[in-house]
């Protein structure tokens, strides 16, 4: 009836890590990471600096070995990822090493024969869309232009898995938009793992979000579910309420002044949350529940993590 094709419902897992641990001398970068990225997802890996995002990605790409635990990528042990396996993975990182001495066209021409699935038409499309200057040396390109060249070279062979480590950092909004558009055009046929601090950018793109902190996932879930369960709560009372010492574990960062109590509810359910507020704090003049951006959720998690530490 409709001409729309549905994505297959059967979801398999493209990335899975099992209790991944990575120690650098005295620093524990990963502390038992269990990450699962389903097929077709745009999975955003977020977390404070030093949380272990880049380390996790480098283990997945077989750039680092793990201290213990294992990682599976596209059904393979990550330790086997090399040569042929890399032709189905497109990897771009913030500090990508590129052969600086060659021109953009030579760079693309050099890569082509390594990838049986390289698509010349897609390559041309990416070059046009990203406005890549083919006759310039990579060393002469701006940071944004280099990222665009790296992305074009990672997408042109239609990889089944695209891994982007902080692709937007330090780039202007126009370049970000261009990168996002090129990435989204591939999203229907690929699984994407993206680590980023640019939360406003990825908020509308991500299907899943994982919050990494101190080498461990504090949550990993679908974006709509995450957005549903977090609310900023503000309660106004006619008279100062007595705040009991024991509060629900899902209430984060509670603060109160004479007549107002504010907190972040991390397990929001309008009826249950309202009932808890009535039972614990008494009748209020008004209660407001405000949905939160990914950025506010990130800040709440990061600050509460620091409070707990």
């Amino acid at each position, binding site marked *: *009836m*409709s*001409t*729309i094709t*549905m*994505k297959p419902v059967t979801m398999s897992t493209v990335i899975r890590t099992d209790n991944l641990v990575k120690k650098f001398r005295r620093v524990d970068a990963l502390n038992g990471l269990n990450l699962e990225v389903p097929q*077709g997802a*745009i999975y955003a890996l977020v977390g404070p600096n030093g949380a272990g995002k880049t380390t996790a990605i480098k283990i997945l790409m077989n750039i680092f070995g793990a201290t213990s635990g294992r990682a599976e990528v596209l059904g393979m042990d990550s330790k086997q990822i090399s040569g042929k396996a890399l032709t189905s993975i497109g990897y771009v990182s913030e500090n990508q090493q590129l052969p600086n001495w060659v021109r953009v066209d030579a760079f693309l021409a050099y890569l082509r024969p390594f990838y049986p699935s390289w698509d010349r*038409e897609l390559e041309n*499309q990416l070059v*046009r*869309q990203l406005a890549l200057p083919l006759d310039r040396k990579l060393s002469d390109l701006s940071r944004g232009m280099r990222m665009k060249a790296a992305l074009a070279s990672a997408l042109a062979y239609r990889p089944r898995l695209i891994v982007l480590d902080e692709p937007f950092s330090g780039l202007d909004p126009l370049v970000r*938009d261009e990168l*996002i*558009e090129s990435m*989204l*055009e591939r*999203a*229907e046929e690929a699984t994407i793992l993206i680590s980023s601090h640019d939360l*406003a950018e990825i*908020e*509308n*793109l*991500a*299907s899943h979000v994982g919050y990494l902190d101190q080498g461990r996932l504090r949550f990993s879930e679908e*974006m*709509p579910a995450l*957005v*549903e369960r*977090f609310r900023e709560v503000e309660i*106004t009372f006619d008279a100062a309420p007595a705040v009991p010492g024991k509060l629900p574990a899902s209430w984060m960062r509670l603060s109160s002044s004479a007549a107002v109590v504010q907190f972040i509810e991390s397990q929001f359910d309008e009826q249950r949350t309202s009932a808890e507020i009535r039972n614990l704090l008494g009748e209020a*003049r*008004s209660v*407001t529940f*405000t*949905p*939160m*951006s*990914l*950025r*506010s959720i990130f800040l709440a998690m990061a600050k509460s993590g620091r409070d707990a530490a």
Partner: protein
Amino acid sequence: MCYSTVVIPFHVHFRPGLSLYEQVVYAAKKAMIAGQMRPGDPFPSVRVLSKELKINPNTAHKVVTYLITTGLLETRPGIGTVVAVLPEASAAERTQLLGQEIEELVVEAKKLGISLEAMVASIGAHWKRLGGDDKDTDDSGRGGRGKR
């Protein structure tokens, strides 16, 4: 292959923390009811919607599927998806599209301790002010439907 700028015929002013899918559906419905998109007008494809609004293709897909199953869009072989001939939206349906805004207004009013009567009176005053010189609000009570 040539590149032209594809225009999404409606605006989505994304508000963080709300369901993306619902926000796009509402924006599209508003545009149809307001006449920004007319029956037979092409509706952007999933890919264009995703790329232009910078949203996940699954979300874009869900939006288009929903609009088709609710009869607001039709698929025409060889053309793609077009806006369907819509039944005249009732006043209730039109009002429903402002549900979010009205709820926010009510919450703020309650916080400030404003009574319902005072709120309605204030809305009436603003209505008059923005209505300009034509002594608006015809007696049939279906304001805002006049010819333009």
